[in-house]
C-alpha cells in the first residue's frame, strides 16, 4: 500500500495506508515497561516507588502552556499530505471496488482526512444523518446519496447506525446500495469500534478496509517534529520512486522548503524556523529538537508515548500537548546554542538501545550528569541569558527555545467501575460519542441512573462532554478504558 516517503533515507514514512490486518501496534521500550509495571504493582499493594532522584524541574516550577502558545508550538494536524497520499492510492484502485473504508481509531480524526481529500478533489462530502433519521425514516437521506460515477465521501459511518433494533436499517440499506454498484465509488470513514461491531450487521468482508499505519517511535518523532516546527509536511513530486515525497520542515536533517505547494501554513516561516528543544522535566534529557543542528535519535520517552497512545496520532498529540510546560517567569526560555554535544548525547540515544539506556540512566549517574548540564544550561545559563531575550545574541547562532515535557502519566481508572459503567463506556466507544438523551435510550438502566453515571465518569475525567453535545471517552483515559473493556470480554476494535 502507498506511503509517504521522507526526503531522506534516514526517516521512514509518516503516513502509510495499510490494510487492517497489516496494522502494527508500536511496542514500548522494555525497560520503561518493566519500570512502569513495577510501579503499578507497588501501587496495587499500597506502596509507592521512591524516586531515585529529584526532578530537574518540579511541577511547581513549571506552568502549563497558554492555549495560544500551545497552538504555536504544536500546530493542528494538517491532513493535506495524507489526503494526497490517499488520492495516489485511489488512482490505482480496482474499478470493481464499490467503496473503500478508512478505519479511524477513536480521536485519530481521520474524518478530517476524508474531508480534506473531498475538498482537494472537489468530491461530494455527505453529511451524517441525524439520530432521528437513523432510527426513523431514512429513505430521503439514502435517496440523496450520489448516483453518478464521481467519487464521493461519507466521513463518519459511525453516525449512520445505533445499537438499537431500529438503528441498523440505514447502514444495511447503505451497504446494499454500495455493493450493488448503484452509488458509484464511495470513500467512507468509519470509527474502528463501530467497524468492529458492524461486521456482525453488514458484510464488511466484501469491501476494502484500510487505515493509516500506527505511529511508532520514529514516525511519531518525525511527526511531532513537523508540528513543532510550526507547519505541515509538504508534498513534492518527482521522487525517484515515483511516490509522493514529504519535505519535512523542522526535522533535524532536512532544510525547510517554504510553501511552494501552496498548502496553508498557519505560522510565519520566521517563527517556524526557530530552534526548539523539548526537554524532560524529570531527567533533563533532550526528547525532541526542531530547526536545530542537534542529531537526536528517537528517545525511549517518545517510543513509550507511541506505545501508550497505541500509535493513534490523535491520542498521542493530546497526551503530548498535555505534558508541555514552560517556566512561568521565562515562558519562552531560550538556551544558548553553545551547549556542547555531550549535552544532547547524555540524554538521548537513538535506535533500540536508546530505550534501555535512557531508562537505565533515569536511575543512574548518567542522568545526574545530564540533569546537571540541562539544569545549568537551561535553568541558569539560559535563564540568565534570556533575561532580555529579545536582544540577547549568542554569536551568529540562533537562540534555542526550551519547552519542558512533564513525565508521562498512565491514567488508571477508579477502582469502583463496574458493569454499568462498562456498558456506558462501550456504548460511547461503539458510536464514537453520543449525546445524553441517546445514550440513555440505548442502555438498559433507568435514564436517571445513566445520567448520574455519565456525570460520575466525567468527574473522574474518563469521559467528557464535547462541543457537539456528545459524551466521549477522553484521549487520556482511552488506553485504560480499552483495557478495562477487553478484560471484561467486551468487543474491542482491531487497531
Amino acid at each position, binding site marked *: 500500500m502507498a506511503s509517504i516517503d521522507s526526503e531522506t533515507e534516514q526517516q521512514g514514512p509518516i503516513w502509510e495506508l495499510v490494510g487492517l490486518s497489516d496494522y502494527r501496534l508500536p511496542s514500548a521500550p522494555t525497560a520503561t515497561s518493566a519500570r512502569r509495571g513495577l510501579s503499578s504493582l507497588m501501587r496495587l499493594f499500597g506502596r509507592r516507588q521512591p524516586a531515585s532522584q529529584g526532578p530537574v524541574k518540579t511541577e511547581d516550577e513549571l506552568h502549563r502552556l497558554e492555549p495560544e502558545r500551545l497552538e504555536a508550538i504544536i500546530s493542528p494536524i494538517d491532513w493535506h499530505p495524507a489526503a494526497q497520499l490517499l488520492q495516489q492510492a485511489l488512482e490505482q484502485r480496482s474499478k470493481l471496488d464499490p467503496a473503500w473504508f478508512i478505519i479511524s481509531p477513536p480521536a485519530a480524526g481521520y474524518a478530517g482526512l476524508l474531508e480534506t481529500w473531498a475538498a482537494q478533489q472537489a468530491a461530494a462530502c455527505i453529511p451524517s444523518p441525524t439520530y432521528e433519521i437513523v432510527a426513523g425514516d431514512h429513505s430521503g437521506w439514502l435517496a440523496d446519496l450520489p448516483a453518478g460515477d464521481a467519487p464521493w465521501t461519507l466521513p463518519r459511518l459511525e453516525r449512520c447506525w445505533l*445499537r*438499537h*433494533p*431500529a*438503528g*441498523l436499517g440505514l447502514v444495511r440499506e447503505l451497504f446494499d446500495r454500495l455493493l450493488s454498484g448503484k452509488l458509484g465509488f464511495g470513500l467512507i470513514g468509519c470509527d474502528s469500534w463501530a467497524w468492529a*461491531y458492524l461486521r*456482525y*450487521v453488514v458484510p464488511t468482508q466484501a469491501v476494502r478496509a484500510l487505515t493509516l499505519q500506527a505511529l511508532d517511535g520514529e514516525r511519531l518523532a518525525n511527526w511531532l517534529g513537523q508540528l513543532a516546527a510550526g507547519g505541515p509536511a509538504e508534498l513534492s513530486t518527482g521522487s525517484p520512486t515515483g511516490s509522493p515525497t514529504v519535505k519535512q520542515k523542522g526535522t533535524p536533517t532536512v532544510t525547510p522548503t517554504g510553501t511552494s505547494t501552496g498548502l496553508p501554513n498557519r505560522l510565519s516561516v520566521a517563527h517556524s524556523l526557530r530552534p526548539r528543544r523539548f526537554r524532560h522535566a524529570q531527567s533533563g534529557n533532550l526528547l525532541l529538537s526542531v530547526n536545530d543542528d542537534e542529531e537526536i535519535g528517537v528517545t525511549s520517552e517518545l517510543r513509550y508515548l507511541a506505545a501508550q497512545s497505541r500509535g493513534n496520532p490523535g491520542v498521542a498529540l493530546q497526551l503530548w500537548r498535555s505534558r508541555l510546560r514552560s517556566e512561568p517567569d521565562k515562558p519562552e526560555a531560550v538556551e544558548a546554542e553553545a551547549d556542547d554535544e555531550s549535552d544532547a548525547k547524555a540524554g538521548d540515544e537513538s535506535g533500540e538501545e536508546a530505550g534501555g539506556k535512557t531508562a537505565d540512566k533515569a536511575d543512574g549517574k548518567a542522568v545526574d550528569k545530564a540533569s546537571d548540564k540541562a539544569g545549568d544550561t537551561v535553568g541558569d545559563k539560559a535563564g540568565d541569558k534570556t533575561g532580555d531575550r529579545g536582544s540577547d545574541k549568542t554569536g551568529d547562532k540562533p537562540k534555542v527555545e526550551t519547552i519542558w515535557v512533564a513525565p508521562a502519566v498512565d491514567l488508571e481508572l477508579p477502582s469502583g467501575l463496574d*458493569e454499568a459503567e462498562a*456498558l456506558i463506556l*462501550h*456504548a460511547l466507544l461503539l458510536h464514537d460519542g453520543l449525546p445524553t438523551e441517546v445514550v440513555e435510550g*440505548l*442502555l*438498559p438502566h433507568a435514564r436517571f441512573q445513566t445520567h448520574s453515571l455519565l456525570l460520575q465518569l466525567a468527574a473522574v475525567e474518563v469521559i467528557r462532554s464535547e462541543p457537539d453535545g456528545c459524551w466521549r471517552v477522553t484521549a487520556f483515559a482511552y488506553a485504560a478504558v480499552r483495557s478495562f473493556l477487553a*478484560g*471484561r*470480554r*467486551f*468487543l474491542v476494535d482491531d487497531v
Partner: protein
Amino acid sequence: MDTETINDLFRRLDTGALLDLTLILFGTVALILLVQKALPWLANRLHGKSRHYLLALVPLLRLIIVIGAFLLAVPTLIEPSLQNMVAIFGSLGLALGFALKDYASSLVAGIVAVGEAPYRNGDWVQIGDTYGEVTHVGMRAVNLVTPDDNLVSIPHAKLWTEPISNANNGSPQLQCTADFYLHPAHDGARVRELLFDVALTSPYLALGEPIAVVAAEQPWGTRYRLRAYPIDARQQFRFATDLTLRAKAELLRQGFRMAAVPARPEPAGASG
C-alpha cells in the same frame, strides 16, 4: 484383637510426634483457608475463562492438601506396614460405613465431584429444584447462590441419585432464553428479523456467539424463543430482562399483537 495388639499398631505419641501432628493440622487448615480465600478473591477480579479456571482449582487444591496432610500424618501415628494399614483402614471404613453412612457417602461423592467435575465454582447448575451459581465446592456439600440471593447447601451425595443440569459447564458462556407469545396472524419472518436485531443490539450480548430465534405454533398463538449468550454468565437475568423488555417494546411499536390470555380452546375439527 487384644489391647496389646492394637497398641502395637500405633507408634508411641511422644512430645515430638504430637508437635508434628499439631503442625500438620494447623498447616493444613491454614493452607486450605488460604486457598479458599485467595483464589476466589483473585478470580472475582478477573472475567471470563480465567475466572472459571481459578474457581475450579479450589476444590482440587484442597483435596491435594488434605491427601498430603494425611500422608504426612499417618506415619507419625502408626507403624507404616501393610498389615497395620489394612487393619486400621478396615476398622475405620467399617465404622464410617455403619455410623456415618450418609456423611461418608457425601465425602466420597465430593472426591468424585472433583474428578468428574459435574459442577465447578462459577457454574450455573440445577440440582433438584434449586438453580443457582456454584460458589463453593466443599468436602461434603456444594453451595449454590440462587437468583434470589439465597445460599443453598446441597450434599454431594445427590450426585448418586439426582440429575445435575449444568448451564455453562466451566465456560463463561451461558445460553439465555426469552419467550414471546404473539397473536397468530402476523408476519413471522419480520418478527424473526426483529427479534434477531433485539438480541444483536443488546449491550449484554456476547458478539460472535450464535443467536437463534425458534418459533412454534400453539393453539393460542405463536411462541417465539429468542436464544443468545450474554458476555458473562452472571449477566443472564439482566440479559433476559433486557431482551424481553426491548423486544416487547419494539414488537408493540411495529404493531404486532401479543397473544390473548386466557387462551381459547381450539375449535373442534380445526386440527389436521
